[in-house]
């Protein structure tokens, strides 16, 4: 009987030991590497960059990091491939702005008076204080050239022989491999009884999605297509909404619709497309996709060009449909 009890105890202890959870860390060794982020824009001559050290937190919750991993004192430089001119960023501690994540003064690199030339290859080089080097390159896409024949000339457009369900914007030189982002802005004015005019700038929704029973507007349309179709019904619904509750419709004057097309370079196109073609919805993934294109480290270097087209409204259409005036000063 004693033997039997002893055996049972041995079995119970063994089972207890082997049932325990063995410790294993999901975290590997952190290498000494850096990350740099720059997106060059042709709609401004003020370019900014952020350079930081990669990091790890004990609980694998990145938001528990309390210190800005920004790295200053590095040489962050741009150079066209066909030129020897260097454009060097300055680092700054901007005490007038706060980095909300760390609640510390904002730190970043900036470059003034640099409007990137489209169609040219441009190189990024970063020399860090510890001797590490980061590099990357891109070619700024040419701005789109609007196709006037296949674009709606005015809103609502000529009715005869045309589909007026959409306000169409088309362009001719888009690379179908690269993503184009379209955004539409409505500028309008409201004239007070005193005669004072106030300017309003609003993004026009291009579509709507329902998320958790809430309908949300989508303001940017991304596509490989070389055209952007703005739904007339959505546009009109939106234009009605700007004067909702106000019977004095004639006090509103509408400026031409602004359509902006952003042509992404290959890097940005990859950034936006990554992991999309088999984005299996459920997913318990242990290795998500990512696009990083920095030699020697992490981060992202990309660029886009920007083009704007305005489409005027027909006065009769504005008046008859909405009761609005056409803004003539713009």
């Amino acid at each position: 009987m004693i033997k039997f009890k002893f055996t049972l105890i041995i079995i119970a202890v063994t089972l207890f030991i082997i049932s325990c959870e063995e410790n294993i860390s999901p975290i590997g060794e952190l290498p000494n590497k850096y990350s740099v982020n720059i997106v060059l824009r042709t709609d401004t001559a003020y370019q900014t960059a952020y350079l930081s050290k990669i990091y790890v937190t004990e609980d694998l919750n990145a938001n528990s990091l309390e210190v800005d991993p920004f790295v200053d004192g590095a040489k962050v430089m741009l150079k066209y491939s066909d030129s020897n001119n260097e454009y060097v960023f300055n680092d700054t501690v901007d005490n007038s702005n706060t980095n909300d994540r760390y609640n510390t003064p904002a730190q970043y690199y900036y470059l003034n008076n640099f409007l990137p030339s489209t169609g040219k290859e441009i190189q990024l080089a970063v020399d860090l204080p510890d001797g590490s080097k980061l590099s990357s390159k891109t070619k700024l896409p040419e701005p789109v050239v609007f196709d006037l024949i296949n674009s709606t000339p005015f809103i609502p457009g000529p009715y005869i022989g045309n589909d007026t369900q959409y306000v169409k914007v088309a362009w001719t030189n888009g690379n179908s491999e690269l993503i184009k982002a379209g955004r539409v802005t409505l500028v309008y004015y409201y004239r007070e009884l005193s005669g004072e005019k106030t300017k309003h700038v609003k993004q026009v929704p291009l579509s709507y999605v329902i998320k958790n029973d809430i309908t949300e507007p989508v303001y940017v349309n991304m596509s490989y297509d070389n055209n952007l179709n703005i739904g007339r019904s959505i546009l009109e619904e939106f234009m009605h909404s700007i004067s909702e509750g106000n019977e004095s419709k004639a006090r509103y004057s509408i400026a031409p619709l602004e359509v902006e097309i952003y042509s992404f370079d290959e890097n940005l196109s990859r950034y936006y497309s990554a992991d999309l073609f088999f984005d299996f919805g459920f997913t318990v993934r242990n290795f998500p996709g990512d696009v990083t294109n920095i030699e020697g480290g992490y981060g992202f270097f990309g660029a886009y060009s920007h083009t704007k087209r305005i489409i005027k409204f027909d006065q009769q259409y504005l008046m008859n449909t909405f009761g609005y005036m056409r803004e003539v000063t713009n």
Partner: protein
Amino acid sequence: MNKQKFYLLILLLSIAWNQNLFSQEKGTLRGIVVDSTNSEALPFGNVLIKELGLGASTNNRGYFVIRSVPANQTYTLLVSYIGYKTKSFNVKVEPDKITELEVRLVPSSIQLQTIEKVEYLTEEENVPDISKTTITPKQIEYIPKGVESDLLRALATLPGVQSTGDVSAKFNVRGGESNQNLVLFDGIPVYYPFHSIGLFSVIDPDIINNGEFFRGGYSANYGRALSSILKIVTKDGNKNNFSGSLSASLLSAKALIEGPIPEGSFYITARKSISNDVLKKFVNEEELPVDFYDASFKINYGNSKFFSGTKFSLHGLFSRDNLKYNDPGRPDYHWANNIIGLKIFAVGEVPFFLDLGITYSNFKNELLPKESDVKPKLNDLSDFSITADFLYILENKDELGIGIDVKSVASKLFLVNRFDFKADVGLDKIGSNAFVNYKFLRFENIGIDLGARFNIKNLAAKGDFIEPRFSFNYLLLPLISLKGSVGIYQQELTTIIDEREVLSLFDPVVIIPDYLEKSKAAHYIVGISTKPANYLSVDAEGFYKKIFSAPTLNENKSLYSEPDLLESTGESYGGELIVNLNFMPVEFSASYTLAWAFKEVDGVKYSPRYDSRHNLNLSFTYNLPDEWRFSTNWIYHSGFPYTQQIGFYDKLSIDDFLNEYDIYQTLLPINIFGNKNAARLTDYHRLDMILSKRFDFNLFKVNLDISAINIYNRKNIYYFEQSTGKRVNMLPFLLTGTLKIGI
């Protein structure tokens, strides 16, 4: 002379070299061995002519043929089958005739089996059978049930077969991907043989008569799979009486009806989910609102006189799975299998078997986004096939098999990406394969299987015309046989697997696209087998598998023009050992595998997620008096590879930078991962038990099973959540039960 012609010549010479073709004073014994209670065929049984020591095994339809038996004499025929009383009777063999028999064996109780010395008779030890395991419904029953007793889960207990988690019944064989296995349901391919998220198979074990599982080295009559073939033969239905059963588990309820019809028999079965509470245990206590059913039927019609007839069978399998969340923000998923086939099986006046089939297999998988961010997806695969297989048994025991199939496959895959970009990567193709294989069984000590598959018309665009196969069994000593096999294998359809997904709900099956090579592998296997006693067998095999090409998801695709799939290569090698001890009332088996697997994509070589160095499976069954049975199973494998997270870097937010922004406000932390699958999870082990009792109440037969899974509640790691690093464990301790009532 090119390789193909050389190969054909060898085959023709082999057939011509048939010394006993015109024997005058010899006859043939041919028969079927069936269960006396329901006339179901008994596969893999033994038949022996006692006086001559000449014997044969029954095939998977219960048939046997013994040729070249000296005629005009009366012999004692012994027919045995585990679990049945051995039958001994006299039979007279006529010259130049086929003597036809139907042998009806009576089941024996466990008690009788322990008393009666079961005659394990001369098996055909020279028949090449490398890497082959036969499976009976009883073996499936003996394995403790997680949710349902299941054939595919039972496979994971075999050496060389690896399952990557408790959740899924998907399996990997000898370092191959899970999409390199072909499941044949009465000869019809089942492209996605799983219920929701791969929990268990759509094939109800109650309809299985037998299964044959080939882990590699399979002969030329099997093709279109790189790593393994699972051939399932369903039962015919009770030919003697009407009978039925009802059973219920914590997950589902099912019913089975079977019985005789004029000149034939039928069965019909249906299974339906009744609750999914138990499934939460499998997915970390998350809600898994699964609703499923499967149904199958078979109708047989044939001449009741066994040897003179042709048997027709119409059979089908239908399954539906829905994963529907009440939350409109979570997408719904649907899976469906529709499988139907007409089979004509003919037994000729000379010893040949002819198997004709017209089959249709359809798999549909759909993702409905509802109000979620996920985009809709649809995969629809239809395979319409006509097959003809012919087997001729020569006087000298050699066998010649010839077959051809013609397939029309339509695969559709509709995808929509985040930009509403729609893609249809489907293909419609017609393909045809033929095979010839010749088994030299004339010699007592050696058996050779020589054959080839011919890709007359490819479904996939590029591939080899011929797939040569060779295997042998050599009886080195009376109790020890050496085995070997070498062959080329190709595959034209594939399931697209995202290796980054621990658990996937959308598993599209497609024809390999034209820009890739057809999947191709070579198997090299050697083995040794011994049976030192009637109750003990030991088998050891070593394998090397080279995968020359296999499609793999392009994880780095980021431009539309880049391909969705890339070609990968791989290799795996290792050794397997299996020991079976059947000493009634005790049964014990142990299997051990030592293996390595590697995969290479785009110049990067890594261990795939299912690569495990050591695998051990121990199972023990004790058949207790009064129809009690106790089984226990202990599974161990060393840790799977995984990719470690090494830190974070800050990156511009994907949504914000078009607007005016402050760069320091738009940064989001992005995970940095180490080298792919460079780290290893901790070892896995689990102890399961099942206690069964059968009760007889007049007409009713009641089976009660109680299973305890992961008895010592081992916290086996499944994966780390990539967003939090949180450890997710596999199945905790789980107690389940099944009640089955039969008439």
